[in-house]
């Protein structure tokens, strides 16, 4: 019991930071502690959480995916064009874009696996490719006026006090739950952890490294596509410059959530909390009204540093305590 709590320390630390931040904000602004603010936090950050779930899988496996922001941008433009210009029904367009994203991710995973290239640079090329492709489709901001979009943005679970659990937020919660099941309870999830621990050992254990790697990047791209769908629901438009730099926010959220960037360790729920902390900072800034939005970047940077330093410290202590008994037997 105590050991499993120890394993969860980083996530607990993240949760503590989030709660402390929320309490501080509520003390400063009495209106802050309301269901409405919490629900808005969920809706406004829904797409980022979905991306962060995919990024958690990639990072735990020891990789990185820089292409997700561009994939979101491409998805929104593709949906706008498919629904408004090409007359494809929205649901068919959703399926089509998810299949396209799956193919895109599988290609990146295959290149990383079979050509033994760093994930960093392959997904960087993917980032250029997806962003460039969305520029080629259209450089304008295209509104989406389909009935389904109007219907979905109206649809929400309503609570007292004007709080609404919107469709994007519902999708996001479903993705987080599904991601937790997939990562923590299935064989695929166990393989992802194993890959992050040691690729060579994983291969020697008889786990299909190639298949797992390709699947991980496929999953990340599909979730980025889903995030793009949610983003287009949220904004009711498609724009090739949307979600620029989201990959950094997602990576930051995953790290703040306690996942080790060297792989092998991490939790989906931590990434969710990581996004929520970033959202909290944004909300605080919008409540304040005087602070400028660039403080959000500086605060995120500081948090990143604090959590990484914390990780290094725990790693260091763990290594020392492991070494100590070994030294006792010369």
């Amino acid at each position, binding site marked *: 019991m105590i050991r499993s709590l120890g394993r969860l320390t980083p996530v607990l630390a993240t949760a503590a930071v989030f709660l402390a931040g929320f309490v501080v904000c509520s003390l400063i602004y009495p209106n802050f502690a309301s269901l409405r603010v919490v629900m808005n936090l969920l809706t406004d950050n829904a797409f980022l959480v979905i991306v962060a779930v995919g990024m958690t899988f990639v990072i735990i496996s*020891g*990789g*990185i995916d820089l292409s997700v922001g561009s994939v979101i941008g491409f998805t929104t433009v593709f949906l706008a064009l498919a629904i408004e210009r090409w007359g494809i029904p929205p649901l068919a367009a959703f399926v089509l874009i998810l299949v396209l994203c799956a193919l895109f991710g599988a290609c990146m995973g295959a*290149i*990383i696996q*079979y*050509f*033994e*290239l*760093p*994930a*960093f*640079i*392959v997904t*960087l*090329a*993917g*980032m*250029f*490719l997806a*962003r*460039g*492709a969305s*520029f*080629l489709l259209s*450089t304008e901001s295209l509104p989406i006026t389909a009935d389904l979009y109007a219907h979905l943005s109206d649809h929400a679970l309503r609570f007292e006090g004007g709080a609404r659990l919107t469709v994007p937020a519902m999708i996001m919660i479903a993705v987080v739950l599904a991601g937790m099941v997939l990562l923590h309870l299935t064989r695929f999830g166990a393989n992802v952890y194993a890959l992050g621990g040691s*690729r*060579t050992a994983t*291969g020697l254990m008889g786990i299909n490294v190639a298949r797992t790697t390709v699947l991980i990047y496929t999953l990340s791209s599909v979730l980025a596509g889903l995030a793009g769908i949610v983003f287009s629901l949220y904004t009711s438009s498609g724009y090739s410059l949307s979600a620029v730099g989201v990959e*950094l926010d997602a*990576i*930051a959220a995953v*790290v703040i959530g306690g996942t080790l*960037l*060297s792989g092998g360790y991490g939790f989906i729920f931590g990434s969710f909390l990581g996004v929520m902390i970033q959202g909290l900072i944004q909300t605080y800034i919008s409540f304040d009204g005087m602070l*400028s939005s*660039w*403080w*959000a*970047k*500086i605060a*995120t*940077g*500081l948090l*990143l*540093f604090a959590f*990484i*330093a914390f990780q*290094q410290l725990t790693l260091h202590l763990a290594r020392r305590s492991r070494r100590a008994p070994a030294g006792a037997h010369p």
Partner: protein
Amino acid sequence: MAMRFPRLGTSQLLALGVILLANWMVSPQFFDIRVQDGRLFGSLIDVLNRGAPVALLSIGMVLVIAMRGIDLSVGAVMAICGAIAASLADSHALPVVLAAALGAGLLCGLWNGFLVAVLGIQPIVATLILMVAGRGIAQLITEGRIVTFTSPQLAFLGGGSVLGLPTPVVLTLGMMALTLLVVRGTALGLMIEATGGNPRASALAGIGTKLITVAVYVWSGLCAALAGIVASADILGADANNAGLWLELDAILAVVIGGTSLFGGRFSILLAVVGALIIQAMNTGILLSGFPPETNLVVKAVVVLAVLLAQSPRLGGALAGLGVLFSRATSGGPRR
């Protein structure tokens, strides 16, 4: 390890030549150079001039990558230093302005080096912190506005000319010569290659790997500061949001095109600069050919992939399954 590219850089120079020829076919006056007011003008000079910031960044980046590192923060450092230079330019003398901006770059490099060498954080994460926070810091300096200046001395660094060549080109050449002198004129380059090849063995052999790690990040910070000053001086102002945006990726791309392996080890400063010129020549070519500039990113992506596949340890040995298993066991995890 993974040294498939000849040191002469035949393939890179060939690629640059092909792209320049393609540009010439698209626009017949591409190679025309004329002299006006004691300064050279022409598309070729333009490629050199526009390529200067990325070339400057790639000079620092190549050393970092040779050490198995990566510096994602250079774009943000450019924004910080450009913002400092622009906001001081009209109230202070040029040496003060330059010292402040370069000093800021040095501090940024020290911070990155400290995180990587002392705290032992992976380079990609360590420099991510400054990449995220840096742009915020730059906006703090400019107070969220686009700061403009009129100082002719600082403007000279972006738009002036020395001996007929645009100042950014001269500065880049100077930085390149200085770096070559320091790195190749001493044993430092050898130590960097040794550390990148095998950090542990190098440390055991008595190389001060930590000090060298800090030094290369500081150098990268200085190069980024100079690039930031040049970019600011060019537009007579500082735009904290857009200065140096995505240039870290171009710089990494230039280094990779220059044949330096991302797995560390042997490197070439000259070829990294050639890589930067290749990227700029492609940009210019796409503009000249009348294609929408949007195609630029797709072309870049295809070039990265082509270069990567050519560099891949797997290509050529695709059949040798055993050999692959061996290289995987010895390369110590090529994944970042």
